[in-house]
């Protein structure tokens, strides 16, 4: 099995050095080899479980509740402009 570490890092938006890429390739391969053990468990007629206590369709009244003020929501950012978060442009003209 050959892992494309650079592609995974791109999906995960992780900046990795070449050295890290090399180390991770080895470690991830080790871990993936370990979890192979699961292929030995027969799960043919078994349903997957995502939630363990069996709650279903938890709903609430469609009412707004107290929430953070704009000032609070912006209180931790270093990317502030006129009361908004600034982000890098993802679309460009022309």
């Amino acid at each position, binding site marked *: 099995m050959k892992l494309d570490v650079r592609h*995974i890092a791109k999906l995960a938006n992780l900046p990795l050095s070449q050295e890290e890429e090399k180390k991770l390739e080895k*470690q*991830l391969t080790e*871990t993936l080899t370990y979890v192979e053990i*699961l292929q030995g*468990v027969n*799960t043919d007629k078994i349903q997957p479980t995502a939630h*363990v206590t069996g709650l279903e369709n938890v709903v609430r009244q469609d009412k707004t509740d107290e929430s953070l003020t704009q000032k609070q929501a912006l209180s931790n950012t270093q990317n502030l402009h006129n009361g908004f978060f600034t982000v890098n442009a993802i679309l460009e003209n022309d």
Partner: protein
Amino acid sequence: MDIKKLTISQAKEDLKNKKYSSVELTKAYLERIKQLEPHVKAYMTVTEEEALNNAKEADNKIAAGEDLPLLGIPLSIKDNFSTKGIRTTASSKVLDNYIPPYDATVVERLKNAGIVLLGKTNMDAWAHGSSTETSDYGASRNPWNTEHLPGGSSGGAAASMAADETLGAIGSETAGSIRQPASWCGVVGLKPTYGRVSRYGVVAMGSSLDSPGPITKTVEDSALILQVLAGQDPHDATTGPNPVPDYTKNLAHDIKGMTIGVADDYFEGVNPEVKASVEDALKTFEKLGANVKTINLFSPKYAIAVYTILQRAEVSSNLARYDGIRYGNDRSFLGDEAKRRVMLGTYTLSAGYYDQYYNKALKVRTVIIEDFKRAFKDVDLIISPTSPTTALPVGATENQSMFGELADVLVEPSSIAGLCGINVPCGFSKAGLPIGIQIIGPQFAEETILNAAYEYQTENPLYLKKPNL
């Protein structure tokens, strides 16, 4: 007052009878923190000013005759619980300067119950680990031997409790992060059923597993804190509507006729000293009138694989939000362990691999749940060692890409199934390091595990033994 001997239940009574004030009590802990922190390193942040203000307020309320469940009681809180106006880092440099604008539900409930906040405790960064060695701020130390680790991820919490740098601690467990450090530090650690305690405002690790809970000196104190934490929260839709019983009411109920299951697979590869100590504990349970019965359980080695896949998938999703835009630093600040987990999780969730890894793990999760259900038809509780070893020396986790998963092999199956479990100290190794048993119950059987733990603690009150610090 001798804070080394003090329990929450005793302090509650003393405060009520005005033997000392909450301010005096709080000052005694702040003094001990100052004295011991250079060696134990349990705290990320000590909130001295906040603590003294909380204590003054508590004293005013006591004077006015108010009675709240934890009024004037000093506690430490793990640094992954959002605390309004108080730095919350989850021991990661990504959140180095993060000041939450709101309280986690757990924190809100504790404040409403009247606690004094001593500070925020160190942990493995993002709760990724079982040693505190992945903390971006350095490892905490085991109070029984400061050359050894306290375990983790709630290692600072367990160390603060064992060193009497607090009267009680709040931790969180995904799979092992309360029980394992409690075991290594010789204190009581309760992991509630998934959904019993709200996750709202807790820096998320594995959202289908995360369970906040208490780390305390005694079982009774654990029940007192759980009483405050447990219950449905509109902010966390996975908290159940199940009624919250009075957890202290049946603590001293006798356990004659209770059936305890013990599985051989849970003793495989366990250190001989740990094994012998747990076997002694089982004899004590028999002496108390319980029936110990050998049962078969699905081998925990499969749980390691299920847990590794599910947890890392959930980690990659939960850490995706940390981009440094709205708060915190950017992703270049993530440590090695976080990167390792995000990478594996991203891979197993990516196109073409989802069925092979993630969906397969969800199916084996069902197998594990069904296996426990079958076992609990014949037994009331299951007992095993909490950790295969006693506390390992500082440096033990270096370059171990699955250290946490392997160290927590005996707690992972019950976490995957959302069960409740409690670590109770049961002995010491020849080297003087604590050993713990875990008592596992069905979902929402906290009352039963607390009862069994209390009865055992009464026979073997190891909390009276103290580390030399």
